[in-house]
Structure formats: structure tokens, C-alpha cells
């Protein structure tokens, strides 16, 4: 079964205007009858919030399971379709559905439900407040699902870690014409380089030192080029291997404009060796080397903003991404891959660490989402010729404490420390806001320099 599009509802954005319902009535009415809207927006007076009743096109539709006439069936297009020729009007489907997704319409004389208007939902088109979204992410997952998984089954990550998701999805897209570098860290720990002499992936993979990933990839990429072969040079590194120990080689390669796709999976520390602090560890966070005790209260320095540092190198492409926003990640991976054929592309992925940050293994995506929604991790994208663009609105973020309270590594924070983090998050957001405001003209270089020529020179 493949995943399919859904209509998502954001109660916080809904003001109950009812345009969606009217649009539905227009779309579904005929000369014979005025249709009952297949989407209902309703107010819960107790909470003061708007709610929705609309079919979710369940993967496992209960309405269909309980239908005694086999009149409901989920099709390959994802729509749970109703067959009027078979329906006997028993209404048992309305007992099976817990969303109010299928209901009797007196005007029409039978049960009615949403069919997403053949891929162009009219309710979504009519919503001016962004409360309804037609989410087609599922199509992307299906497309990705069709690509070959180039990691072997059975990577040994911690339960609930999103790194496996990042690795597999990335390599599926980047494809088999790749040389992969995975410096010491969680990624080889999970088995990218294999066990017992067996490879962990189906592309050439190597295990550089923590310090020289970008240099080794530089050499490999150039050597292939010299031999007339264009391969993608891909690094999957942790934040330590990228931003601390590995920074000199990374910085050098970026500055030279090497044609490399460098992906940093940032879990804010040296997690596979027992959760030591790194340059990316948040101020105040507990780690094995920034313990909590009578006087020690976690890390005493702010994290450095590695993606911004990379941007100042004038790379071809730099972006931040999160596994809570896969559509955005996919689009950025696409752009980064493309840019890596011209110069240095750097992708920074937030990777909440279930073991080291101390949160339940089921909450990884939740944590990742909160980080973004609180501006703790801002999603943006930089192209050398267009400057920095924010990927989502950062005005009106959720309070940072909503993020902090999810994580055990922050449990000890006192009010001063929280205020410090809040200030830091606000400052970082302000810097990005300013950068995004520069609105450069298309095609003009904003930061950085032209490095292709030199790279070519050295190739000779």
C-alpha cells in the first residue's frame, strides 16, 4: 500500500469563516440537489477553538471494514470511495468512523464523504488563512520508496533515532554513482561502513579520520574527475566531525569550492562515544563532559552556528533542514545535489538524539518539530547567487520552553539559564531575519566569491 495525500487542518489558523464549506457545497451540488458539505468546521465553545469533521482517507478505513455491502473501498489513489450502487443506507459506516468523516445527508438521501475533488480539493483552495493544507508529502515518500535503498537492512541505531531515516533517504536520492565518506560518529556506528568485513551500503564507502573527511573527499572527487568520471562525493558526518575536529578540512574544501555534497547530521555532541559536548551543544545542556552537580550546571558556552559559518564561506548552496519537515528536506537535498555538481553544497540536519538528550524514543519527530516551531532550529536556505531565504515564517514562534521541557538534558535549567537560551534563540532569529531581508537581486552574488575557477585550475 502506498501513502497518499491528505488534507491537514490547523485549528490555530482557523477563524470559522466557512468559505471551505461553501466551496464544498458548490463543488458537490448538482441541479437536482444542494449538497451537504463534506467538510464541517465547528466551534467548541469550551475551548474556544474551531474543529473539523472531514474524511481522513484512512490507511485502514474503519468505515469500509464495517460496511456490510462492500460499498466503501480505499483505492490506489488513496481515496476511500463510496459506491452508490452497492450502498444500502444502513449507516453502519457512520458508526465505524470516529472522525465524522462520513455522514447521512438528508437532502441527498444517502451517506456522503469527501473525495478530495480528484486531487484539487476546493475547500483548500477556498481557505485564505492557511488553516487547510493539501499535503502531498506522501507522493514524495512513494517516489522515494521506488528508489533503491542503498544501505543494507539492519543498521544498528539507537531506538527512535532519525539518523537512519536521514541516511537512507539521502542515499536513495543521491543514488549509486556516489562515493560516500562517513567519518567516526553515529553513522559508521550504525553500520554504514559495515561489520565483519561486510559493507553496510551498496556504494563505495570509506571511513576517514574525524579530521580529514572533506580533504579525502576532495582528493577522491578530483581523481575520479581526472579519470573522466563524474561521481557524487558525499559526506555524512556528525557535528563534531564537521564543525569541531573536522572543521579545518571542511572550511578549506568549502572555501576552495570543491564539488562535494557535505551533510552534517547535528545531534549536538559526540553522542556515540557517550554524549560528550561539542561546539554545537546548546548552552546549559547536560552532557557527559558538562555534568550537573553542586556548582556545574551544564554547558557554559553557546553553540556555534555552523550552517551560518558555512554560508560565510560563500558555498554554492547551504541549507538547514529537519526530519519533521520532510518535503522541505527533500527539496533542499535536490537543490544541494544539483549545486554539488558546480561547487560546495552543505546541508545541516537537526538530529534529536534519543539516548543522549534523554527523551522517549517515540518522540523524535515531535522534538524535531518543536525545535523548528520555537525558532530553536530555524529552517533556511542560501544560494550563492540569491542570498538567504527563510523556509518558513519565523514570526510568532512557540515559546522556547515548549522545546526545552521535552528534553531531559535541560531538566535542571534554572530561570537565568532559560532566559539565556531564550535570548540566544531570539538573537539568532534576528540575524537570520536581517539576512533574509537583504532581498538580493536574482543572479547577484551576496556573500562569498567565485571559486569554480580555482577548483578547475587545481584540477589541471
Amino acid at each position, binding site marked *: 500500500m502506498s501513502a497518499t495525500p491528505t488534507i491537514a487542518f490547523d485549528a490555530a489558523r482557523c477563524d470559522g469563516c466557512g468559505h471551505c464549506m461553501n466551496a464544498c457545497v458548490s463543488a458537490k451540488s448538482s441541479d437536482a440537489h444542494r449538497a451537504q458539505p463534506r467538510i464541517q468546521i465547528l466551534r467548541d465553545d469550551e475551548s474556544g477553538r474551531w474543529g473539523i*469533521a472531514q474524511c481522513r482517507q484512512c490507511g485502514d478505513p*474503519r468505515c469500509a471494514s464495517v460496511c456490510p455491502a462492500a460499498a466503501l473501498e480505499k483505492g490506489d489513489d488513496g481515496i476511500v470511495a463510496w459506491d452508490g450502487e*452497492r450502498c444500502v443506507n444502513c449507516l453502519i459506516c457512520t458508526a465505524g468512523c470516529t472522525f465524522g468523516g462520513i455522514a447521512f445527508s438528508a437532502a441527498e438521501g444517502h451517506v456522503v464523504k469527501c473525495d478530495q475533488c480528484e486531487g484539487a480539493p476546493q475547500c483548500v483552495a477556498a481557505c485564505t488563512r492557511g488553516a487547510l493544507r493539501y499535503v502531498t508529502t506522501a507522493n514524495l515518500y512513494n517516489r522515494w520508496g521506488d528508489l533503491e535503498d542503498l544501505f543494507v537492512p539492519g543498521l544498528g541505531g539507537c531506538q527512535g533515532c532519525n539518523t537512519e531515516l536521514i541516511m537512507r533517504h539521502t542515499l536513495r536520492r543521491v543514488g549509486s554513482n556516489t562515493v560516500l565518506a562517513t567519518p567516526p560518529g553515529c553513522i559508521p556506528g550504525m553500520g554504514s561502513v559495515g561489520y565483519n568485513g561486510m559493507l553496510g551500503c551498496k556504494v563505495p564507502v570509506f571511513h576517514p579520520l574525524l579530521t580529514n573527511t572533506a580533504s579525502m573527499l576532495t582528493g577522491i572527487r578530483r581523481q575520479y574527475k581526472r579519470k573522466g568520471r563524474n561521481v557524487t562525493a558525499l559526506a555524512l558526518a556528525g557535528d563534531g566531525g564537521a564543525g569541531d575536529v573536522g572543521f579545518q578540512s571542511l572550511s578549506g574544501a568549502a572555501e576552495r569550492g570543491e564539488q562535494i555534497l557535505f551533510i552534517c547530521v547535528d545531534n549536538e555532541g559526540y553522542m556515540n562515544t557517550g554524549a560528550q559536548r561539542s561546539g554545537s551543544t546548546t548552552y546549559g545542556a547536560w552532557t557527559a563532559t558538562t555534568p550537573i552537580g553542586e556548582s556545574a550546571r551544564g554547558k557554559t558556552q553557546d553553540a556555534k552556528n555552523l550552517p551560518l559559518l558555512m554560508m560565510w564561506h560563500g558555498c554554492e548552496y547551504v541549507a538547514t533542514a529537519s526530519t519533521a519537515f520532510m518535503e522541505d528536506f527533500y527539496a533542499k537535498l535536490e537543490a544541494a545535489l544539483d549545486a554539488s555538481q558546480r561547487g560546495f553544497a552543505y546541508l545541516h540536519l537537526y538530529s534529536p538524539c534519543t539516548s543522549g538528550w534523554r527523551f522517549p524514543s517515540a518522540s523524535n519527530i515531535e522534538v524535531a518539530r518543536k525545535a523548528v516551531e520555537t525558532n530553536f532550529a530555524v529552517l533556511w536556505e542560501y544560494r550563492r547567487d540569491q542570498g538567504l531565504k527563510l523556509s518558513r515564517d519565523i514570526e510568532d514562534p512557540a515559546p522556547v520552553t515548549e522545546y526545552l521541557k521535552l528534553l531531559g538534558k535541560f531538566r535542571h535549567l534554572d530561570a537565568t539559564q532559560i532566559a539565556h537560551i531564550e535570548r540566544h534563540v531570539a538573537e539568532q532569529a534576528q540575524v537570520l531575519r536581517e539576512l533574509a531581508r537583504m532581498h538580493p537581486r536574482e543572479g547577484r552574488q551576496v556573500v562569498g566569491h567565485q571559486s569554480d575557477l580555482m577548483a578547475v585550475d587545481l584540477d589541471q
Partner: protein
Amino acid sequence: MEQFDYVVLGASHAALEALRAIRAHDSDGSIAVLDREARLPVSPTVLPYVVSGKRPEDRIALRERGWFDDLRVDYRQQAHAAALDSAHSRLRLADGSEIGYGKLLLATGAAPAVPPIAGLSDVRFHVLRTLDDALALREAGRSAGRAVVLGAGLVGMHAAENLARAGARVTIIEMRDQVLPGYFDATAAARIQAAFHDNGVEVLTGRRVERVAPRAGGCTVQLDGGDPCDADLLLVAAGVRPEVSYLAGSGVAVERGVVVDAFMRSTAANVWAAGDVVQTPSFFGDATPAGGILPDAVEQGRTAGMSMAGDPGVQAYPGGVSLNTYGFFGRRALSVGRDAPQQGGADWEVLVRGGEGSDAYLKIVLRDGRLQGVFGVDVLFDPGIMWELILRRVELGARAKALLEDPQDAARALMSGLWR
């Protein structure tokens, strides 16, 4: 002897849902589904619509053969279970063949209960559970001048309406003093009964059949202390009994149905049961009627299937909540959950709107501010949402009033906030 990892007995709602659940977790295990019928599975619930002629019998199959093929399930018709030997994990079929199983699901449903009425075995009477029953009843209904229906439960009421529509003069006889006992209170039942009366159906409640006797072309039904009434067609719709005839001496404990735990395991090792064949515990933990309905069969089937396949996502079956969507003469009555007991006490609250003569009736029952039951005639709401609110023991608080005013919108708004 043939051997399968899973054997499922029956091919109706409980069985089909279990199959899906098993395959969702175990993609390789061998599965056989054995149905006694010689045709594709048909839901008992759809039969009234076959009797009425609304649906032709060749357009009602729950699944086509291809569905079983796609799941790689060995689906067999005319495979009638005759005896179970759970000690040796072996099943004997009516044709004498034997089949071994790793895990077995009993989903053989129920059969019509035939009440001990003097003379009943000497007359021709109808029941309604299988497609054959429905076809026979449809045929007989075409020519019946006078029809008598024993029992005013859902089956009897549905059939009575169909027979009346087909032109018969129909009398319904119910032992208890209202129609649809257990599903609706007396006020609601009276509204429904009035509709039958308006459509020319005679409903006799609080009456008992003493005896039936054959008569040329039909039978005579003798009521307690009353005139005998003649019938060309007699339909017995006096409830159901679990289909457990093949379980004698099997090691599977049977009381009012197969005894199961919260994961639908029977008392015999490697034997599960789900649906109408089971003695369904009430969600409320009291004597409220539970089970015997389609949504429960599906829930139990899923629970059993997941448990059989060892799916770690399986959750304990919460117990049955009565749930009915009943259509009569183009109108609708809905019931979910339980009514308040006679001597309820202060923790119970009953909200009612629409008495006699009003255009709709609605009753909402709460205990400690939590929804216990919703009963409506000519009022629409989403029974599925009410069911969920009951199962989740959601505290309604001040929302109870809104629920009484507009049960559909108020419950939807509340539920929407509870889903994420």
C-alpha cells in the same frame, strides 16, 4: 493431513478483519479460511435489503476471490467445521477431512435462536441469517397475505417492514413490553412503534406465543389469553445463539458464547475467537447487552488477528458497547452505549429533549460527567464519535448541554480537539 500456520473458521466480518490484521504483521505464514457456504461471503446485515429487493443477491459479496488471492490466503468454500480437537491442534470437516493448525480463529458467528414454543417444529417457519434464508423469505413474502413476526428486535423489525412493503398484512409479537428492547427506551420505542402502526403493521408487545399449529398454507399462532391469529408466513426472529455446535468436547469453554480474554484467546491453547460466536464482555463491566453487532465483530476480529500474529501493536479489547443505526420507513434511529439504571443514584444524569409529539427525540446519559449513552430518533449524530467518547471516558463537563442541543456538531467539535 494438511497443515496451516493459521486457520480461520468463517468468512464474515470478524474473520475478514482478522485476516487483514494477520497479514499486516505476518507476510509469510500460511493461512486457510474455511467457510461452510458454497458462495462468496455475504454479511447477515445486508440480508434485509435482499429480502426487500433493494439489492440483487449477486451484488452483495463482502469480498471477491481476488482479495483472498492478493493476501495469499487459501480461501475454501463448502468447508464446514464439524469437530475441533484442540489438544492435537486439529480440525475435522463435515466431509471427513482433517486440517492441522498452528493457530486457529473461531469466527463462525451466530445462528437464529429458536424459542421453545409448543408446536413450532411441526410448522414451516422462516429465520433470517444466511442468504438462503433471505431468498426463501423474499420468495415467500411475495405471496404472503398475512405474516407473523416473532420478536421485535432489529431483525424482526427490519423483516416486518420489508414484508409490509411487499404487501403483506404483518403482525409483530414481542414478549417484552416495547419494541427494540435493549437498544431504546420506552419513549423512543413508542415513536418507532407508531411509525409501524401508521404503515399498517400491527405490533403486539408484552405478549407471549403459547402454541403454534399447522394450518392449510400456513399456521395458526395462539397468543396467551387472546384470539388465535392465522399466518401464511411465520418468521422467527427471537434472537441468536452462538454457532458452536462443532465445539463439543473440544476443550474450548463455552458459556453464552465462546469464553475469551481481552486478546480474544479462548480457554484452549492456540485457539482464538471473535465476533458473534463470542461471549462479549460489556465495556461497562455490567449486565448491559454487548456483542452481537457488526462493529464489535470487526473490532474483535482485528484484536484476535493481531494477537495471533504476535503484532506488538495489539491492544486489549475494551469490551463491547452497544451501537445501532436503525432505519425504518425512511427515518432513522441511532443508539450508542447504555441507558441509566432504574435506581441510578446521584452520579447519573439523564438529559432528554423531545417528548411525545415533538419532531425528534434525544436522550443523553452521563455518569460522573462522562458519556454513557446517546439515543436518538429522527436526530442525526455520528455514532462512531459517540462510541469513541464513551471508550475514552471523556469528561463532557459543560459540553453536555451543547451535546443535547446539537449532538452532531458538538461531538464533532469536541472530538476534533481530541484528535491530533
